[in-house]
């Protein structure tokens, strides 16, 4: 859940989120939580940056060639990208960044999303 500031051209919205990791092979599904913030600059064509603490990847335990447990690998992630915001509230967002887990594993993060703002 996020809250955006009222400014039109420069917006910021902190958020918290809960999501589900789907089951993988013999591993049961699990959930993960995240919190962070999104900042936007612009109106119809907008740039955004995202910083969050949350899952930046799966940690998977594989025994004898089968994944038996999955858990979120928490860490810090940052992304930047572009968002198109239509007049009706429909938006498309694409971004690229990186994340690092507490244990030091790191990798690229990317996002491709669409949604609606009513």
């Amino acid at each position: 859940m996020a809250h955006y500031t009222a400014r039109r051209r420069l917006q910021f919205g902190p958020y918290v989120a809960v999501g589900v990791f789907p089951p993988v092979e013999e591993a049961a599904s699990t959930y993960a939580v995240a919190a962070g913030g999104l900042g936007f600059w612009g109106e119809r064509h907008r740039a955004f940056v995202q910083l969050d603490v949350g899952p930046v990847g799966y940690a998977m335990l594989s025994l004898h060639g089968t994944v038996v447990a999955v858990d979120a690998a928490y860490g810090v992630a940052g992304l930047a990208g572009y968002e198109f915001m239509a007049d009706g509230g429909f938006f498309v967002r694409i971004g690229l960044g990186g994340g690092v887990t507490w244990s030091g594993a790191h990798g690229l993060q990317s996002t491709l999303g669409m949604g609606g703002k009513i």
Partner: protein
Amino acid sequence: MNRRTALPAWVAASAPVIAVALGCSEQPCTPPQCDVRGKDCQRRVMAATACIRGVAPRKVPVRVIRSDQYVDEALNDVDSDAKEAFERRARALAALGLERQRNLDDVVAAYVARVGAYYDPRADRVTLFEGKTGPSVEALVHEFAHALQHDVLDDLERTALPNTLDAALARTAMIEGDVTLTTDRAAMLSFGADPNDPDWSSVYGKWTAGTSAHYRREPLPVSLADRYFVYAFGAAFLEPVSSAGVEGWLRDPPETTRAVMAGAKRARSVDRKLASVYDAGQWRTQSVRVDAGVTPQIDARIGDGGASDGGVGDSGAGDGGRADAGAAPSLLPFTSGVPLLAPELDGFELIGLDSLGAFVLDSFARDQGASARALEADHLSLWYDAENDNAVGVYRLRFGDDELRQVWLRRDREQLWEGYVRTLMLDDDVVLFASTDWKWLDDMDLESLSWRAFDRASVPYSLRAAPNFAPNFAIGRWAMPFALGASLP
């Protein structure tokens, strides 16, 4: 609403993130992450291992030694006769193309290079080898689980059990399968997962299938059969069995790999059926075909089978006693129920007797795409002519109710494999095999046997499918996080 009023709610809502991210509460059976060379760490690992198994912990001494130190110790314990017998046997196997020729020193060094720890039931002591990365918690859990089998192992030591590869694989599968169950549960706990979550029958079912596939490509199928069979098939066998049932199987293990593969429910009946095959005395003499290039003087009178006590040599120890030439087949002694076949091979020395069993032989058949018939019994006598560096094996396979195969062995490995398949498919009569009880671990595909990482930090992270939790749907100033972005590698 401005940011100041929103902040406390944001912080409060983030609390679960911080709690989860900083680590969850540890369960009592969870193995600690510590340096296993420390006494306190060893005590805690033993406590966790005993907790998983639901028994009281024991005090078991642990020593940490360098690998080369162990090699020296092991070789010092072997007398020259045993070493010579081993190497003579190795030459025979090499002559058959089934193994590489090697000396005992190399074998022990190769073994140690692949093993991180072991439990010695006689000394009741765990030994950890110093390696490049040091011994792991998981290795210690595994060996402590063996130490908790101490009473059972002690009893087995005093029990007369069949001494064939087939029987040894079945017996060891119970011991290692039991320990594998403990080790896997320890891995789950270390990961922070519930050991009861996975469908273990599916996990072990896939493991046995994968292991069999690897095994079919194994260049040392006899020597390394235990590495493929005992862990995967033992775990699959014992997984559905209760704790009390596991102890029962440990004390009274299945006698054949066929019984282990049949599962706990059918194992006893399979063993009874196979025992009846051995005891029925229905082995019949067949015509013998000798492949070109090896012409041992063979008396076609092959002794009828049947279990009997007594001992010529020792199939497990590779004893190399020469057979009594000219002895009447019906009077030939047996080793652990394995009859000595073709006793009159001039110039050939008896290297060993064995029964390889279904796991080994079935894999050959499947490897070649043949539809394997159920093997019910097999006997092997292995002979070696040191002067001419020739090896000969005499093999008998039995399929079905009264079907009998008499088999010859020769030095060409491909020929032997194909021969076995021809036996299965065309009712022909050529097969070859050999056996050793030494664990030669080089050339082994460790992929399916590799130790899992207990240290969570070393678990490889897959970043490919990480959901992006940034909210993608907004109502007014509030956004809902149900739409997740896709992440790319």
